[in-house]
């Protein structure tokens, strides 16, 4: 089946000479929720902006639903809805007017019933006659989502949709996104929050300094992210790991004073109890221990390092 988005060899160098994207290859499958994770300035917004027609690509091609975004932009853009990262709204318009305007802009005939449904789904129905300037930030964000959904897109880009949205609303928004996915819409979202990607995404792509450094199923990635390390500070240095402990995933520090055990928090059994029992049996004493989990930041850094 044709992918929803097909990016090949895409590069972007801004006029300033800064290269924001480097040879990006990426496929987003039809009907999935794809989360694009990456630190500030990684190029997430740049990538989305190119696909949606806001920024000119320097090199490479993008197909949206099989249509080239440059040569066949009408067909490509009709399929796409975009919720930008920045909260940009026409301050003096009403919610209803601005959402209806968006639909018209995409060439669709007026359909009040659809707009009503979108506004209700996003809990904006009561606010439909309000001017945008009178709405809170979270409401404005939802108006932007409503605008993006007004023309019934098949592919939806959400650039940090939950930035500045409170926890409860965030859950509601996730629910809306899930419903959309069920109705067959492909969703690409960017986020800094690993929990958000974890909660929502089918697949996750990590972008750093303009390069896609990994694209993986969520389950796989969570497996990697879910790894923890237990470090034991030994009473007496060891020369090597005794054979009786060979069954455990252990590493010995160079000076022999620390044993590090790597385990998976997502598994039913972490194996810690067994390890401690075996250590006891081998007569290895330790004076202290601590555990640590790799943060998303560290994983980014490690991934980038691995690439270099």
């Amino acid at each position: 089946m044709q992918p929803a988005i097909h990016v090949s060899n895409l590069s972007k160098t801004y006029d300033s000479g800064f290269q924001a994207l480097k040879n990006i290859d990426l496929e987003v499958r039809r009907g999935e929720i794809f989360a694009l994770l990456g630190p500030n300035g990684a190029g997430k917004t740049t990538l989305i902006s190119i696909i949606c027609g806001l920024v000119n690509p320097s090199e490479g091609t993008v197909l949206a639903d099989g249509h080239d975004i440059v040569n066949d932009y009408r067909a490509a853009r009709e399929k796409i809805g975009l919720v930008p990262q920045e909260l940009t709204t026409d301050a003096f318009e009403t919610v209803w007017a601005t959402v209806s305007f968006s639909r018209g802009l995409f060439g669709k005939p007026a359909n009040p019933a659809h707009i009503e449904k979108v506004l209700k789904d996003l809990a904006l129905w009561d606010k439909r006659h309000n001017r945008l300037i009178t709405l809170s930030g979270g409401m404005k964000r939802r108006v932007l989502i409503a605008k993006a959904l007004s023309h019934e897109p098949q592919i939806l880009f959400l650039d940090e949709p939950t930035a500045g949205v409170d926890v409860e609303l965030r859950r509601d928004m996730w629910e809306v996104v899930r419903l959309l996915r069920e109705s067959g819409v492909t969703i690409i979202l960017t986020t800094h929050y690993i929990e958000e990607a974890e909660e929502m995404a089918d697949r996750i792509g990590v972008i750093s300094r303009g390069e896609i450094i990994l694209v993986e199923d969520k389950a796989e990635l969570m497996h990697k992210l879910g790894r923890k390390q237990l470090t034991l500070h030994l009473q007496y240095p060891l020369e090597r790991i005794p054979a009786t402990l060979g069954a455990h995933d252990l590493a010995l520090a160079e000076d022999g004073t620390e044993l590090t055990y790597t385990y998976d928090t997502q598994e039913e059994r972490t194996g810690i109890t067994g390890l401690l029992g075996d250590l006891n049996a081998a007569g290895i004493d330790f004076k202290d221990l601590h555990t640590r989990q790799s943060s998303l930041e560290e994983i980014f850094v490690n991934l980038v390092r691995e690439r270099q």
Partner: protein
Amino acid sequence: MNLQAVRSIYTFEMARARRTLLQSVVSPVISTSLYFVVFGAAIGSRISHIEGISYGAFIVPGLIMLMLLTQSVSNASFAIFFPRFSGTIYELLSAPIAYYEIVIGYVGAAATKSIVLGLIILATAGFFVPLEIAHPLWMLAFLVLTAVTFSLLGFIIGIWADGFEKLQLVPLLIITPLTFLGGSFYSVDMLPPVWQTVTLFNPVVYLVSGFRWSFYGISDVSVTASLLMILVFLTLCLGLVAWIFKTGYRIKP
């Protein structure tokens, strides 16, 4: 062609004008009336007729042109500058619209507003001075062509400007002086010979002259020259707009 989108932009812009009806219609009408009171009645009564036309009537076409130019430029420049400034332009760029459709929507709305305004001012003038229009169709043609051309110019300024100062600077520093020196309030041959030649480099002279011809059958320069000048100007603006969108100048990084 995405007609629906053009219509959306057009009606959106017209709705905006309706919301600001007071400032977009009432204020130009008041200021034009003031011109008539001051120039037409007070000073005009002491000025002899120009080519057989009372001074009050003589300045009507020039005044309408003055309003037409300034309003077209400010309407169109603001209409496109604002989405750029607020960021809502993202939606225009991401929609399945061709550039010329964006231009038709915005320039069409801006031109419509200034044409309506021009007609209102014309009607207002009727209260102060006896009006005659020798060539009504030509009058309309000049009105429409000028409104469209200068709305295009405004559109270009709105894209070029990177701040509110620049947005106001061009109309203030270029359009207004050119219009005042463009024969709105006098006939070119009332000037010293040197200035008559200099004046011929002012495009507004051709607009005012042609427009006045459509009223009274008198003109400073030939009507053909006037028409040609507008068309040249229109073509220039169209070319610039095409270039802007082709390169993404100041719209698309």
